[in-house]
């Protein structure tokens, strides 16, 4: 099974969307993406954490330490107001992109 390469910025979109339903720690985010994509996407920690720290720096998400479901210490991330706006913008961009690519693929005869 070959790896699917996500386009740059798509991981940000996925993380923001996952966090829209509530605060979550890094492991939970990776698990949820893996589960929701029917195991097609496995986010490696080497890509997840740099992306998360980058988004934290831009102010889209904020972090605080907490206790996870298994009574284990974890850092929970949640969306900020700026993050919500960014999510909406990125979803719109994604839709435009996929529509455009789809159109070219469908009509290129």
């Amino acid at each position, binding site marked *: 099974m070959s790896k699917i390469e996500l386009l740059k910025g798509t991981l940000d979109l996925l993380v923001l969307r996952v966090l829209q339903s509530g605060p979550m*720690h*890094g*492991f939970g985010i990776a*698990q949820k993406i893996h589960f929701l994509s029917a195991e097609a996407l496995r986010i*490696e*920690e*080497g890509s997840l*954490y*740099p*992306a998360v*720290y*980058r988004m*934290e*720096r831009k*102010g889209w998400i904020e972090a605080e330490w907490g206790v*996870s479901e*298994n009574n*284990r*210490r*974890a*850092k929970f991330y949640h969306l900020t107001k700026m993050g919500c706006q960014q999510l909406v913008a990125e979803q719109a961009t994604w839709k435009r992109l996929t529509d455009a690519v789809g159109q070219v693929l469908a009509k290129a005869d």
Partner: protein
Amino acid sequence: MNLFRVLSHAIKSVFRRDQVDADMIEEMRCHREAQIESNLAAGLTPTEATRVANRQFGRIDAIAEEGREARGFTWLIHLRQDLRYGLKMLFKHKGFSFVAVMTLGLGLSVNITSGCLSLVDILFFQPLAVKDPHRLLVTPRDDPKNQLSSSDSIRSTCRSSVASPSV
């Protein structure tokens, strides 16, 4: 609000770097443990679970380095490190530092004061480099309110001051 956040982030990244780094390592450790637990729940043996988790996680140093870079302000961190090293070296070789500072200081101060003096001299004290500078007039600009225009006033002044007829 945005500037405040950027500033606080910069200060944390640069001056609380150790704590932020430790935080990151701790976070990754917790993630790894959660991964091991999930592997165990999926039915792997403990050794297998640890091995798979380690493999999935990859090289933690590389990830930590990327995490640090993603936080940004690396240029500021490097600048701070370089400054500290430079200062340490200066204090280590006090004789050399003293000579260097005195040379720079004396050279700069002499040049600056002489430069300023000559500037002030040219602006305020030297007469202008024209023939008969004391006969220069300042004329007002042409103004609709004035009855005379500036060209009229120059002609009348010249006529009154020049004794001999014009050549």
